[in-house]
């Protein structure tokens, strides 16, 4: 669907530790694909640009995002109260490819990167694909009771850096031993270093079964300004717009070496 630009009302806010889920009404015809994002105005103090947030949930007449507070814009957004107005542009970008031969999907999330994977998991299960969500975070309390809630709907495995919950270590330490791609589809979203380790673990054979959602700073969100460049393999040296040609890219599309350098 083409993107919509709309003002809407915040219906509900649920706080989960460092993040909040914001639920708002969406216009008729709003049909986001998993992995697409919404570009939301976070006003105030001369902050100009919208901020991108993945679709976290969608349910007919409402949708939601999961906002982790990392700076001024996200802090402003997660402090909105039910009844407040939001200015939203979306859904934007290319989402995950839901088709694939492998019957089992491994969803690999770091931190707030869990957001698009939760929505993806719902859609995959509706299609009969078996999905497991692997989620890494700093500590067990970081996202409040969100793990409990997610655990009710999907097979969830946790890793924490401080070992306070689930496995001590990174999310990659949770993956089935020896998994290097074969037999699984991999969907990942999280901090750049996590994506880089995952890719090097899967490369070269498994990259074709990997899809990642890449974060890059954005301005227009529409592919017009070329501000959100992501280095791709073909043609060599070229960039693609994360906001339009991504944010989801196939593992083989990306130029992992240049991604590493710009981190």
């Amino acid at each position, binding site marked *: 669907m083409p993107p919509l630009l709309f003002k809407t009302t915040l219906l509900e806010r649920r706080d989960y530790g460092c993040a909040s889920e914001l639920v708002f009404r969406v216009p008729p015809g709003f049909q986001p694909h998993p992995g697409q994002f919404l570009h939301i105005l976070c006003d105030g103090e001369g902050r100009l640009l919208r901020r991108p947030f993945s679709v976290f949930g969608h349910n007919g007449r409402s949708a939601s995002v999961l906002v982790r507070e990392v700076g001024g814009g996200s802090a402003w957004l997660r402090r909105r109260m039910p009844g407040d107005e939001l200015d939203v542009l979306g859904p934007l970008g290319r989402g995950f490819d839901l088709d694939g031969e492998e019957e089992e999907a491994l969803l690999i999330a770091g931190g707030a990167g869990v957001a698009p994977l939760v929505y993806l998991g719902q859609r995959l299960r509706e299609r009969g694909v078996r999905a497991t969500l692997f989620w890494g975070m700093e500590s067990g309390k970081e996202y409040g009771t969100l793990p409990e809630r997610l655990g009710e709907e999907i097979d969830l495995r946790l890793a924490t850096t401080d070992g306070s919950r689930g496995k001590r270590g990174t999310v990659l330490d949770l993956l089935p031993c020896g998994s290097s791609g074969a037999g699984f589809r991999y969907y990942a979203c999280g901090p750049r270093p996590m994506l880089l380790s995952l890719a090097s673990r899967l490369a070269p054979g498994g990259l074709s079964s990997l899809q990642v959602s890449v974060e890059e700073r954005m*301005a227009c969100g529409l592919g017009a300004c070329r501000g959100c460049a992501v280095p791709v393999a073909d043609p060599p040296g070229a*960039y693609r717009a994360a906001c339009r040609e991504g944010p989801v890219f196939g593992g083989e599309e990306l130029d992992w070496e240049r991604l590493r350098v710009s981190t």
Partner: protein
Amino acid sequence: MGTAEGVDLRVEIAGIPLKNPFLACSGTFGNGREMSELVDLEALGGLMTKAVTLEPCAGNPPPRLWETRWGMLNSIGLENKGLERFLSEDLPWLSGFDLPVWVNVAGFSVREYVEVASAVSRSGLAAAVELNISCPNVERGGAHFSRHPGETAGLVARVREVVDIPLFVKLPPLTVGMGEMARAVAEAGADGLSLVNTIPAMAVDVERACPRLGNVTGGLSGPALHPVAVHAVWEASGSVDLPVIGMGGVWSCSDAVELFMAGAGAVAVGTLNLVEPRAVPRLVEELRGFMSANGYLTVTEMVGLLRRKGWR
């Protein structure tokens, strides 16, 4: 649209008629296609394309954007598909709209500028050429020229020879010497000025001790820049008798009116498009309201009004 409610928004700039005085700035509207999903292109007074270079250009390494207080840094670095694909894919598509198109031309040598400008002119599909000699984001891409009025005049004169449509020259907000530069450009045969491009700027991530932009430096745009743009328009329009398209941080109708009164014959909206794709239609309505409330019947009455009232 032009004359409803007794207010006439039409302007003519360098002989090009515009249905309203709001253009979209180069680089902030793509080549129209992406934005057309959200905004009616024919609601714009005109469109200035993303910079076109002779060869395809990959642009600068990311990150390419950073936000500052009421401003934004970018270091896109002229990413574009190159002249050939621009002429075959974008310009013909754009010419299907009732919309004058300024093609923003950049180059890494005089020869490249000449070649691109000439091809654009020959295509017969552009309303004007906008010579971008002020991109702060490429080593050899123009910043060099804006330091040397003499060399700039040379470039403009060369391009002038091969271009049959109005030729605009886009300058950065020179802190000094705007008058000298404007005169050099005028004498070399330019038909108009675009003022201003972004100012060279930089931001640092102090926690990680590294630049915020992959290219280290970038260009500052947005409202932070606006009073500097008003000044540049004021200086240039006081120095030469060329039409000026004013731009820089236009966020509201009154920002645009400041530029008109300082001497701009039309105004272009840049960074705001990135935040509010339907900004121009909103500004058009706001301007209509401002003019009715203040008794202006045409935009031209406001253009250069300060000097006509005796300010120097």
